[in-house]
C-alpha cells in the first residue's frame, strides 16, 4: 500500500470517529450547546482543553521554531513557559470563580459584574477580534496540513476541514466539540510522541524524550551531553549556540508574561471551565489540562534540539562522530541515491526545503553565512549593475565582467561602464578579503572553497513533519502525524468558533437585541451563528489579511490587555466600576493594537508599517509580540484611576462578587 492510500485511510478513520461522536453527542438544549450541560468530568475536560489549546502551531511549528531559531533554542523557551504558565493563572485567578458564576460566556460575566450592557458589548468586541484573528491561522493550518499529506490544494483542504468542523460543531455545540476534542487529543498526542521516542532512542538511548534532552549523545558513547554536542557543531558552523543566553532579558520576560496572561485571557480556553460540574472541578481540571498539554510541551524542546542535531549531522556526515568539518559535506549524488536520505528530495518537492550547489563542488555545505552576506550581496549588486548597463549599451555577454571588453563600446572605453566595472572589482576585492578572514572550524572560507550557505531553506514545520521519515519509521506513523496535525488544527478551530458563535447568539442576540427569545429559538440562533462564524473563518482562511502567522501575536496581546485584566479585577476587586472596566478594556485594546500595527502594518496590510520591525526600532526593546504585558498594566492603571473618580458599584454587584468567591451553591450538574 502506498503512503498516500495509507494517509487517506488513517485520516479518513479519524474523521469517521469525529462525526460518529458528533451524532452521539448532539446538543438538545442551550446549556448543552454552550457548556456541554456542565456535566463533563474534569479529566475529560482537561483532555479536551488540551486539544482545544494545542493548535496547528503547537503541533507542527513549535518544535521547529525552537530548533531553527537564529538566536538559539533557549530564547524560544518563552513559548514553552508562556503557553503553560498561563494555566496556573487560570486555575488560581479565574476558572473557579467563573465556574461559580455559572453562566455561559465571558462577556456575560463582564456585563453582570460591571452592571453594564456597554461593558458586555466591549467584551464581545474584544472576544470577536481575538478569536477571529486566532481562527484564521487555524483554518490556514487545516488547509496546509491537508495539502501536504493528501495531495489536494490548500484551498480544497480548507473547504474539507470547514465541512468537518461544520458537521460536529453545528450539531453538537460545546457537547459535541468537547467529546470530539477528547478523541482528537488522543490522536495528536500519540502522533507527536511516537516519532519523538524513536529520535530520542537513536540520539541519546533514552526512551523518554524529556530525559533525552538532558542526556548524553549516544553515537559517541554518551560521555558528551546531547546539548553540548549540538552547541559545539552549531558554533563550529557559525550559528548561535543552541543554549546561548538571551541578549534582551527584559523583552524575553515581557514576552513570556504576555503569552501567560494572554493564555489565561483567551475566551475559548476560559469557557472550557464552564463545562465541569463543580468549582473544585474547575480548579483540578486546569491541572489536568496542563498534564495533557505538558505531555506535548515537555517533548517539544527535545524534538527541537534532536531534530536540529539530526539535520546537522545529515548534512555533515562526519559530525556524527567528530567535528562538523572533520569530513566532507553531504554529496548531491548521495542525496539522490541513498534511500535513507530520500526525505530530503521529498520535502524539497514541497518547497519547504531547498538547496543549491552554489560553489559547484557537487556537495551541499550547510552553515551560517551571515558574516558573508554583506560582501556577497555587494558583488551580486555590482555584477547586475554592470550587466544591465552592458545590455543597455548593446554589448553581448562577456564571460569575465572585469576584462577590458566588458566596458569597450565601439572600440572605445565607456566612462559609465568603467565606473561600474571599478565598483565590481572593488566589491570582489572586498569579498576576497572577507573570505580570507572569516573562519569556520579554524579554516578560512577561501581555504574551504565555500561561497555561501547551500541549504537555502529549511521551513520550521519540517522538524515535526519530516521526523518520521528522518527516523525511518513505518508509513503508518507518517499517516498518524498527518491525522495528528489535522486533529490539532480542527480542535482549536472548533473551540474558537464556539466562542465566537456563543458571543453572537447569547451575548448579542439574547443579551442585547432580543432578551425574550425562547430556548428553542436561541438554540437555533446559536446554530446559525456557528454556521456564519465558519463561513467567515473559511473566507478569511482563504484570503488571510497580511501575514497569517503574525496575527496570532495580536490575539495574545489583546487577550492579555483586555479580557484578562477585566476578569481579574471583576473577581478580586469590589471597587472597580463599570466606567473603570470599560475605559481599561478600550485603552488596553487600542494601545496594544496600535503598537502592533506600528510594526506589522495597519490591520496587517503589507507596506503600511510605520517602523521596520527590528529590535533597534522597538521602544525600550519591547517587540510587538511582548506588548500585551504593557497593555495589561495600562488597563489596570486606567481602570483603577477611573474607578477612583466614579460612583462605587451598587450593593447587588458587591453581593455577586461575594457569591462567586465562595464555592458553595454552584449550579447543579446535569446528567447526560
Amino acid at each position, binding site marked *: 500500500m502506498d503512503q498516500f492510500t495509507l494517509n487517506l485511510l488513517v485520516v479518513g478513520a479519524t474523521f469517521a470517529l469525529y462525526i460518529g461522536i458528533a451524532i452521539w453527542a448532539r446538543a438538545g438544549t442551550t446549556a448543552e450547546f454552550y457548556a456541554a450541560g456542565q456535566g463533563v468530568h474534569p479529566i475529560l475536560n482537561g483532555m479536551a482543553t488540551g486539544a482545544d489549546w494545542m493548535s496547528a502551531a503547537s503541533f507542527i511549528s513549535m518544535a521547529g521554531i525552537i530548533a531553527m531559531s537564529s538566536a538559539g533554542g533557549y530564547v524560544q523557551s518563552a513559548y514553552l513557559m508562556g503557553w503553560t504558565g498561563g494555566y496556573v493563572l487560570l486555575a488560581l485567578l479565574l476558572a473557579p470563580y467563573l465556574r461559580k458564576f455559572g453562566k455561559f460566556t465571558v462577556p456575560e460575566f463582564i456585563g453582570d459584574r460591571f452592571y453594564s450592557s456597554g461593558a458586555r458589548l466591549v467584551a464581545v468586541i474584544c472576544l470577536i477580534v481575538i478569536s477571529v484573528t486566532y481562527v484564521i491561522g487555524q483554518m490556514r493550518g487545516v488547509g496546509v496540513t491537508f495539502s501536504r499529506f493528501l495531495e489536494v490544494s490548500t484551498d480544497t483542504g480548507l473547504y474539507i476541514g470547514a465541512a468537518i468542523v461544520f458537521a460536529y460543531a453545528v450539531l453538537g455545540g460545546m457537547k459535541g466539540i468537547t467529546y470530539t476534542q477528547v478523541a482528537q487529543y488522543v490522536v495528536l498526542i500519540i502522533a507527536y510522541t511516537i516519532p519523538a521516542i524513536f529520535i530520542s532512542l537513536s540520539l541519546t538511548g533514552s526512551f523518554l524524550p524529556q530525559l533525552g534532552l538532558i542526556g548524553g549523545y549516544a553515537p559517541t558513547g554518551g560521555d558528551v551531553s546531547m546539548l553540548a554536542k549540538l552547541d559545539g557543531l552549531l558554533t563550529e558552523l557559525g550559528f548561535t549556540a543552541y543554549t546561548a543566553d538571551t541578549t534582551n532579558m527584559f523583552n524575553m520576560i515581557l514576552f513570556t508574561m504576555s503569552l501567560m496572561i494572554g493564555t489565561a485571557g483567551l475566551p475559548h480556553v476560559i469557557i472550557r471551565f464552564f463545562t465541569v460540574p463543580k468549582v*473544585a472541578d474547575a480548579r483540578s481540571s486546569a491541572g489536568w489540562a496542563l498534564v495533557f498539554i505538558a505531555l506535548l510541551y515537555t517533548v517539544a524542546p527535545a524534538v527541537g534540539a534532536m531534530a536540529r542535531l539530526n539535520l546537522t549531522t545529515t548534512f555533515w556526515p562526519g559530525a556524527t562522530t567528530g567535528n562538523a568539518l572533520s569530513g566532507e559535506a553531504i554529496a548531491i549524488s548521495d542525496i539522490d541515491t541513498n534511500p535513507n536520505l530520500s526525505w530530503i528530495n521529498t520535502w524539497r518537492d514541497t518547497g519547504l526545503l531547498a538547496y543549491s550547489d552554489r560553489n559547484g563542488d557537487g556537495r551541499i555545505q550547510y552553515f551560517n553565512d551571515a558574516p558573508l552576506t554583506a560582501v556577497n550581496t555587494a558583488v551580486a549588486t555590482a555584477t547586475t549593475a554592470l550587466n544591465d548597463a552592458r545590455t543597455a549599451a548593446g554589448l553581448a555577454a562577456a564571460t569575465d565582467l572585469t576584462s577590458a571588453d566588458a566596458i569597450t563600446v565601439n572600440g572605445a572605453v565607456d566612462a559609465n561602464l568603467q565606473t561600474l566595472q571599478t565598483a565590481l572589482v572593488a566589491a570582489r576585492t572586498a569579498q576576497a578579503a572577507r573570505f580570507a578572514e572569516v573562519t569556520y572550524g579554524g579554516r578560512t572560507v577561501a581555504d574551504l572553497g565555500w561561497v555561501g550557505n547551500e541549504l537555502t531553506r529549511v521551513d520550521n514545520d519540517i522538524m515535526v513533519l519530516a521526523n518520521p521519515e528522518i527516523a525511518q519509521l513505518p508509513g503508518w506513523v507518517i499517516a498518524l502525524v498527518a491525522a495528528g496535525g489535522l486533529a490539532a488544527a480542527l480542535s482549536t478551530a472548533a473551540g474558537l468558533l464556539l466562542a465566537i458563535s456563543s458571543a453572537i447568539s447569547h451575548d448579542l442576540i439574547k443579551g442585547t437585541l432580543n432578551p425574550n427569545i425562547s430556548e428553542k429559538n436561541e438554540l437555533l440562533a446559536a446554530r446559525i451563528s456557528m454556521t456564519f462564524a465558519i463561513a467567515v473563518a473559511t473566507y478569511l482562511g482563504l484570503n488571510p489579511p497580511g501575514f497569517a502567522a503574525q496575527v496570532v501575536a495580536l490575539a495574545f496581546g489583546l487577550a492579555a490587555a483586555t479580557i484578562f485584566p477585566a476578569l481579574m479585577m471583576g473577581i478580586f476587586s469590589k471597587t472597580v466600576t463599570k466606567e473603570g472596566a470599560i475605559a481599561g478594556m478600550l485603552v488596553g485594546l487600542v494601545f496594544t493594537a496600535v503598537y502592533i500595527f506600528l510594526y506589522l502594518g495597519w490591520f496587517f496590510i503589507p507596506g503600511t508599517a510605520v517602523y521596520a520591525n527590528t529590535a533597534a526600532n522597538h521602544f525600550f526593546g519591547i517587540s510587538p509580540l511582548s506588548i500585551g504585558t504593557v497593555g495589561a498594566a495600562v488597563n489596570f492603571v486606567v481602570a483603577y484611576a477611573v474607578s477612583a473618580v466614579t460612583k462605587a458599584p451598587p450593593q447587588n454587584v458587591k453581593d455577586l462578587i461575594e457569591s462567586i468567591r465562595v464555592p*458553595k451553591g454552584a449550579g447543579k450538574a446535569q446528567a447526560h
Partner: protein
Amino acid sequence: MSDKSASAYWAANVRVIIISLVIWFACSFGLGIILRPALSGIMVGGADLGFWFAQNGSIYVFLVLIFAYAKIMNGIDRDFGVEE
C-alpha cells in the same frame, strides 16, 4: 455564612494564591530567565539549571502548583464549610 467567616475564607484563599504565584514566578522568570546567568555552573544532566527550568522544569512546577492549590483549597473549603 457570616460576613466575618466569608472575609476570613477569602483572606485564606488570597494567601494561598500569593504564595503559589511567588513560586510560579520564581521557577519560570526567576530560575528560567533572570537567574540563569548566575546559576550557569549548576547542571541538570546535560543542561544548565536555567535552561532546564526554561524548557522543562518550570512546566513540572506549574503542574504541582495547580494540583497543590486545588488540594489545599478543597481543605480550606471544608474548614469553612463552603464545599459543595
